[in-house]
């Protein structure tokens, strides 16, 4: 079985984290400070120091990951430790607070830390779930190959539409122009693409044409469509065949475009959490510094 960051070295860091947790919990219940559990007792200081050092070390991962010549362990092991020890921070820090929360800088640091950890959980979730989905969605081709195929399909559609009529050509041109994959954060995350509209319009047109059998049925909303249908009805089966071809092409394009959009979505999901995880870490470091400094200054 290939070793991942989850089962690295037979869960070495999971065990380490569990030992750390167990130790902290036992110490917490065994230790009965005079004023009740709080950050100011010797255990509170100990847990706080462990927690602060852990936070700094966890932050260091971003640096370690990029020091490619560094041969101290491998990044997989570091990530494994990062995940498990980072998780243990929930308990260690909570015990450190002695469950004393309030509207102050200390609690701000605590809350920021929890956000960082929870965003990390989301990261782990995406790392475990999306790679497989992404591979399945790609169906053995690459994103570039799909994009190339879309461009080819666009060209074919235009060629076909050109033979049909200026109006259809216009619809297809609009569809080509509107095919924007990726884009802003939101459209990446929601896997949005615009091919559907053109497909819908063309489909309507064909249905209209077949239903009406060429008879004019005035509908105020779709004058262009009617002009088309009218035109096609007079022209006979060949145009209808081409229109059907166009539909097929648009359908294929739609399928591809939505696969690309999905691909982008998965990738975006695997990355987006870092945009919370990392900046909030720095906010946390700030709050943590303030917390430590204030504790020592305003004893």
């Amino acid at each position, binding site marked *: 079985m*290939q070793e991942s960051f989850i089962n690295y070295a037979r869960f070495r860091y999971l065990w380490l984290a569990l030992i750390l947790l167990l130790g902290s919990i036992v110490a917490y219940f065994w230790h009965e400070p005079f004023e009740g559990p709080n950050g100011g007792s010797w255990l509170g200081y100990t847990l706080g120091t462990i927690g602060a050092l852990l936070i700094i070390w966890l932050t260091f991962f971003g640096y370690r990951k990029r020091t*490619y*010549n560094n*041969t101290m362990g491998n*990044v*997989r092991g570091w990530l494994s430790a990062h995940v498990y020890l980072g998780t243990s921070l929930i308990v260690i820090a909570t015990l450190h607070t002695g469950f004393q929360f309030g509207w102050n800088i200390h609690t701000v640091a605590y809350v920021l830390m929890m956000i960082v950890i929870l965003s990390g959980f989301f990261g782990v979730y995406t790392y475990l779930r999306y790679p497989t989905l992404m591979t399945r969605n790609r169906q053995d081709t690459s994103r570039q190959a799909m994009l190339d195929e879309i461009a080819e399909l666009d060209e074919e559609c235009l060629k076909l539409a050109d033979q049909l009529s200026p109006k259809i050509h216009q619809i297809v041109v609009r569809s080509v122009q509107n095919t924007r994959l990726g884009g802003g954060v939101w459209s990446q995350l929601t896997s949005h693409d615009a091919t559907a509209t053109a497909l819908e319009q063309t489909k309507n047109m064909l249905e209209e044409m077949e239903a009406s059998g060429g008879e004019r049925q005035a509908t105020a909303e779709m004058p262009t469509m009617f002009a088309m249908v009218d035109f096609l009805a007079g022209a006979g089966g060949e145009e209808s065949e081409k229109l059907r071809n166009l539909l097929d092409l648009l359908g294929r394009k739609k399928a591809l475009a939505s696969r690309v959009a999905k691909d982008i979505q998965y990738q975006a999901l*695997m990355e987006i959490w870092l945009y919370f995880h990392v900046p909030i870490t720095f906010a946390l470091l700030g709050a943590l510094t303030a917390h430590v400094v204030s504790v020592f200054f305003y004893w």
Partner: protein
Amino acid sequence: MAEFFKVAVVGSGPAGLSAAAHAAEKGVSHVLLEAEAHLSNTIFRYQKGKHVMAEPDVLPLRSPLKFDAGSREEVLGAWDKGIKETKTNVFYKNEVTGIQKEGDRFRISIKGGAEIEAEAVVLGIGLQGNLRKLGTEGEDLPFVQYQLDDPDEYEGETIVVVGAGDAAIENAVSLSGHNTVIIVNRRDEFARAKDGNNQAILKAIDDGRIECYYNSNVDRVEAYPDGSEKPGKIVLNTDEGQAEIDCDRIIARLGAIPPRRFVESTGIEFPNKDPSSVPAISPKYESNVPGMYIIGALGGYPLIKQAMNQGYEVIEFIEGNDVEPADEPLLRDKFKEMPGFTTVHDALVKVQNNVPLLAPITELQLREFMLDSDVRTPAKGDVIFARNDYTNTFFSIVEGSVDIVVDEASGKTITLGAGEFFGEMSLISGRRRSATVLAGQGCVLIETPRRSMNKLINSVDAVKRVIDEAFILRAIQQRFAPDTPAERLQGVVSTAKLESFRAGDILFEEGDDGDCLHLVRVGSLTISRNIGGRDVVLSYVPAGNYVGEMALLGDNKRSATAKAAVNTETIRLDGEAFKELLRHEGELRLRLQAEYRQRAAANLRMEATPEGGDVISFLVSQGVGEATDILLIDEALCVRCDNCEKACAETHGGTSRLNREAGPTYATVHVPTSCRHCEHPHCMKECPPDAIHRAPNGEVFIADNCIGCGNCERNCPYGVIHMAKKAPKKPGLLQWLLFGRGPGPGEDKSATGSGEKKAVKCDMCKGIAGGPACVRTCPTGAAIRISPEDLSSYATSKA
């Protein structure tokens, strides 16, 4: 009255130039006759900026003129300068039309009527002055040319390239960027070309960039009247009748032939009628006409450095001096460690007397062979190479003996004496050393690098035969019967045969009668069975292992199909002879039976999870069959962060040698575009400066002496080599992390880089502790490297 010189040198190629300059240097009365207005026309007409090689590397240059590998311009510049400095007497635009011997003098006629007299004539006219023409009507029309100086000169033209050699292909491919190119090949394939060029042209034809007329020859060329759209047309005879192509230009690259008519008119004789044959010359370069010397390509020495050395030597010979060959000091240096060394000649004779393998080659071949090789005199007990090293040099024992450790545990050894050789296993199979070899008493060895040894094996049949025979015996001995004396194996060895299979060929099929056993010596096999109408791959057999023993041990029918995964060579052991051996060797029988049981069990497991077999089939189809170490990515774990690529770029001067996303995927197994470190690396073929090597741990890497010719890039079937300039230096990581300076980690695709383009490929991070950076820096553990031995278990784990 004709002007008189002691020496007249005809032709200012490398050989003639060097001769004339040396004469000038020595104060010998001389003249250098050159038909053109510039020196060295052949090299002058090279493509602009073409890199000129200075092979053989180790041979020292003996000439008053400088010559180093470099661009055409640098080389010519150095010669022009040298000719001026030595005050060499050059007559430009003096085309020699005839040479006649009159008494003890030569009378040389110059085009235009002038005459020159000389005591000795040195012919250095080469071959390129006599390019082979189309030989049809219209061959001299203005739009027909036989050279191409600068492919970028032409744009938007329709150009017909005639020829199927390297020059034709290189021209066609370089022109195809901006022109419509049609290539005309007399045959149905480009067999004469180097592998790299062959692949380049086939790919260009496949891609539709070049159109090819196979089995076609030129009937005639016709010009159109002035004012036509195209200057003319070429008419071809093809399989389907005549074809006419309107074109702007015809470039015929049909090679060059000795200017035989001219040479023969001077009285020089050729050994036979073959138009490509060159005249016979004495060891002092003198032809059958006394006083007439031939040097350079016309004398059969096509390399520039050799020709320049000849130029120097020929003047010494004419002056009555004896000079030792240029390689003499080098060889003396190599042999001086050898006990009892006196002269190079004696040492060479001793080598040939002592080593039967090297006896059939000529002294000239042996000299060249020795130039590449090293003489080693290890002390008793020294390790010559260790088991599992990835070296692939070849050793011949001139004196003394060596001990081969056949059994690491017991320390049991076999002794090889003088005249024998070793190291052929790794040389042939491209795999790790199969045993440790220790030096014995008074050991003198010749160590020869892979390339030189392969050259010898391929050019001298006798050498190949001897090595193959030894290989068969030793492979059998090592694999089956390390304790059995060679005589007892005679029956098996004498009936053993080498067989080769192309990728996809079937060695034997399920249900066939089992009459033999195959020991894989090069390449690899897959074993499959037909289960429910579908081929299920059961296992993968890398070189060094055997197949087919099941039918010999048990029932007589083949239980599975064996198929070559890549081009494969096996030693076929005759079934009867092998069974005979088994009858006497009870221990061997038991061992084989144990292995047999293990295999049968493994096959059963695989049959239960046929998906594993599919993974093997997929990987084999991706060329894993010839890999020694391949990067695989588990896409169920890969988060597409490209940290592997970034790590690769950061640890290798800013250029990634890995393309994660490219390459096929099966189930979740992804084969990225990255070097597999093939057993017999395709890239090593035709590397002009011999810059591609295999490190002791198996990494195939490109050394700094790469000249950027691109042969390896073309030869690699997996597209893992590319040409890149040196990336510019970036601000440090912290600078980027904290202040956002520079492009950040990974390859900066927008950077232009500096210097020459050189080939880059994966070197498995051989200089870096901790193993390949791609694997080490993968945060999720998706990237792993496996070797073929692990393939089956890997495949099962992915099923």
